[in-house]
């Protein structure tokens, strides 16, 4: 205590005082505190210190406010768009939270592998093909619908009607786009299409990144089994030996970052989550021939991914796209595939939009990247629900990552914001998961309803909505306040922190009514969660007059 007094006396010593005054004066950048610092000849030392102190306090408060604002606005807060290449965006330390089985992946019944018809885009394509072939028309009803797709829909009464309605809405959406939306969403649409067609693939099986055996099959007409495809272009007689599985993991993860991936995890290939009747490269993608075979050399799976552009995602529906994330993760998949084969190992890319033999989200969880969520997408600590993965299947012996439990799924039980905000009511409200899906008890997104919103949204290609991803409390830019919650919440055994955070989320933040997100022709306001970024607002750059309102939350 005595020492402290001395310390204060030393501080009060005149010669220190002069320097402080100097600093204060110099430091103010023209702020009012500078004045006393400058002209304190007349002012008594006491008064100078008192008023200077007050002014300094005011300046500090202002400075703190300014600094905070700058941090929030800063581009550095966009996780996945900065330090990615050095792995700097996988900043959350998962080690304290490793567990053996991901939440909601404890089987409660007989675990069955998914049929290929359970993947919406495969069954949608099959349905359209059936209609095209003329074997079936909608007025014939679900009973007459042939093939596995028919079985699928017969097992799920009412869903076929929703899907057919969605197909109708695709037409309405296209009309609306032609009528005027192509002006309002000109830049968003162009961005979307540039990444998709310019960046990823040329239509008609001409070329795609990464290469896809299905294209090869369509071009050559020959079936291409994985044993051929996955080993293509390997020139080494025998693969290069890794010093140890650990070395393999470390190297491959670094390379994933190097190829531009924010997050990467590696796990054992688990056939439970591989589709039955899907093998790209085989006729009809193997729907009718492949069955439930699993290639021998599919031993390990490397999962990596990036966030979608943040401002766009916050401006869902109309201004958001998945294709920027798809583009980046697909490029990385292509590079990683080649990198591994150069070392002499087989590799097969699993990549978005629909080039999979597997369901991605279970592997993301098994690889310890994230946890299952109410909306049916995986949430990761760094990015929340805003994570779009790709994967490589190979036979390298890795040191595998273990799953994590950071209580995200527990938060989902209470939060329900995505369900309240979902424009199509596709997300369930149950506190605890009620449905058993293929042997696992978890929340089940109603894909048909969800896709109907895709088809009705104010977008160019009717592919996506993303409101649930944008509004998720975990989908936030990386600023210090979110960092504090991110680190505190999973470590708090009492659950008080998450309660407090949820209370803030619900009381502080304002949300639309779910209907508001729908297109104007669909009974909505065409609102976006937040307003689009300046560079996506067509009226800022193009010769069009603005005949719409932005309803985004500020």
């Amino acid at each position, binding site marked *: 205590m005595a020492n402290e007094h001395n310390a204060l006396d030393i501080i009060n010593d005149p010669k220190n005082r002069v320097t402080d005054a100097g600093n204060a004066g110099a430091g103010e950048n023209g702020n009012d505190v500078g004045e006393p610092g400058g002209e304190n000849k007349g002012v008594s030392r006491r008064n100078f210190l008192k008023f200077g102190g007050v002014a300094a306090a005011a300046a500090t408060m202002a400075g703190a406010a300014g600094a905070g604002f700058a941090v929030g606005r800063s581009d550095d807060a966009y996780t996945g768009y900065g330090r990615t290449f050095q792995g700097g965006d996988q900043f959350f330390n998962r080690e304290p939270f490793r567990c053996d089985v991901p939440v909601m992946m404890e089987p409660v019944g007989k675990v069955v592998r998914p049929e290929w018809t359970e993947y919406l885009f495969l069954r949608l394509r099959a349905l359209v093909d059936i209609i095209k072939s003329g074997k079936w028309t909608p007025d014939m009803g679900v009973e007459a619908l042939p093939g596995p797709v028919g079985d699928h829909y017969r097992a799920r009464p009412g869903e076929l009607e929703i899907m057919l309605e969605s197909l109708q809405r695709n037409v309405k959406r296209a009309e609306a786009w032609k009528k005027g939306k192509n002006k309002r969403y000109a830049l968003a649409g162009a961005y979307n299409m540039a990444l998709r067609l310019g960046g990823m693939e040329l239509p008609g099986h001409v070329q795609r990144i990464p290469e896809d055996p299905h294209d090869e099959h369509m071009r050559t007409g020959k079936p291409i089994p994985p044993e051929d495809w996955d080993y293509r272009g390997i020139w080494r007689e025998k693969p290069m030996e890794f010093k140890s599985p650990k070395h393999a993991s470390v190297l491959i993860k670094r390379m994933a970052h190097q190829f531009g991936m924010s997050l990467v995890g590696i796990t054992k290939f688990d056939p439970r989550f591989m589709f039955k009747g899907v093998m790209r490269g085989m006729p009809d993608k193997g729907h009718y021939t492949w069955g439930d075979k699993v290639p021998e050399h599919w031993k390990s799976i490397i999962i990596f991914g990036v966030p979608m552009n943040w401002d766009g995602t916050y401006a869902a529906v109309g201004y958001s796209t998945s294709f920027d994330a798809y583009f980046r993760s697909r490029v990385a998949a292509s590079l990683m595939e080649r990198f591994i084969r150069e070392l002499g190992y087989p590799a097969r890319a699993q990549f978005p939009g629909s080039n999979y033999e597997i369901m991605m989200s279970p592997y993301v969880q098994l690889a310890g990247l994230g946890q299952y969520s109410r909306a049916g997408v995986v949430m990761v600590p760094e990015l929340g629900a805003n994570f779009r993965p790709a994967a490589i299947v190979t036979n390298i012996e890795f040191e595998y990552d273990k799953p994590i439990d950071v209580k995200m799924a527990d938060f989902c039980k209470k939060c329900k914001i995505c369900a*309240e905000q979902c424009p199509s*009511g596709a997300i369930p*409200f*149950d506190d605890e998961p009620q449905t058993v899906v293929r042997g696992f008890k978890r929340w089940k997104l109603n894909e048909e309803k969800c896709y109907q919103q895709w088809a009705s949204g104010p977008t160019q290609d009717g592919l996506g909505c993303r409101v649930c991803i944008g509004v998720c409390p975990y989908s936030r830019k990386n600023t210090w306040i979110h960092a504090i919650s991110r680190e505190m919440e999973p470590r708090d055994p009492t659950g008080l922190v998450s309660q407090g955070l949820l209370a803030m989320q619900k*009381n502080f933040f304002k949300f639309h*009514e*779910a*209907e508001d997100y729908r297109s104007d022709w669909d009974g909505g306001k065409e609102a976006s969660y937040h307003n689009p970024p300046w560079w996506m607002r067509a009226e800022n750059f193009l010769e069009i007059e603005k005949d719409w309102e932005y309803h985004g939350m500020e």
Partner: protein
Amino acid sequence: MSAKTVERISAIAALIILLAAWIAGGVRSKGATLERIGNISEEIVDVRQVGPSVYEGHRRGDAGDKLCIAVAEHPGYGGPVQVAVVMNSAGIIERIALVDTTDTTTYVSRVLDAAVLDAFLGTSASRPPKVDAVTGATLSSTAMIKAANKAAAHIKGTVGESGPVAVSPDEMVKAGLTVALFLAAFLISSRFFRWNKTYARLGLLTAATVILGFLYGTQPSLASLALLLAGFWTKGLASYTALICLVLAFVVFFATKKNLYCAMICPFGGLQEGLGRITKRSPPERTAWMKWISRGFALTALSAALYFRNPSDAEYTPFGMAFSFIGSTAIFALTVLILVASLVVKRPWCALLCPATPVFDYLAFMRNWLTRGRKKEKQS
């Protein structure tokens, strides 16, 4: 014109205005309902009221085909949910409409998805079906179901206007505590109270703040007054505590000339005073015109509430926000401002804009006026 005359004139005027608003509101709400019934379907024509919330019309083009329409409402999540039931001459419910609701659209649509109302279609009004509430939108769905049942009951003619709202034992406890608090206040203010009144008062105020404020988040406000005047309480409420509190406050005020509520019970007052005692400060300086403005506010709010028959219109007070974080952003700002300000001056809200002040002023003024009047009569 002396200040007293001004006060008297304005007092009378206030009374007239409130009365006018109330009557106009009554007319308005009738008209609105009729118009809404008209909107249910263009099939139904020349609708007229045949009883309390029961209407009669006939199908377009066929005067013989009588249609019986009943409207009923039940408190939902965000206010009363109003449902209309159309019964044909065969006694079958052939139409049901959600006429009016202030509940959140998402909840409402979830309930409608679950075909809660459709369950009533085709059933006979005398035997309405058993419908379960929708999980996740319980309040809205229960309200709709209850309202629909009530409407059906209306048609049968057998319905207690008071509705099925049963007062839960929990509510009883609340009411009991409220009464107890007032008794304590009365005791402390009475001259039989031997001990230190200051501390007794503060103690009671603290207790009231904790119980009524932080525990129950219920506190009488202009809304409760509007509720009282508009007579909604006859239709049944979820909670009567605030109302009881208000009535007691008035009773005590008329019995003893003292406004015990503000002094010893009001939770928000307690909050302000508690903060004020941290930095022992004196009350703010309130000028005459401020007084009149605050009176104007109270009057406007009250008459609006009476006209629209919507008590929450009268609510510009920060009570809800302070204790249960309910209210708009403006109210939030107001609350924060008040709480910070009460560190600088004593009870800023009470002194400056709280509607309680004008209300009690008004009562006091009337009281004195009338009693003095009576005295005069006695003398002559």
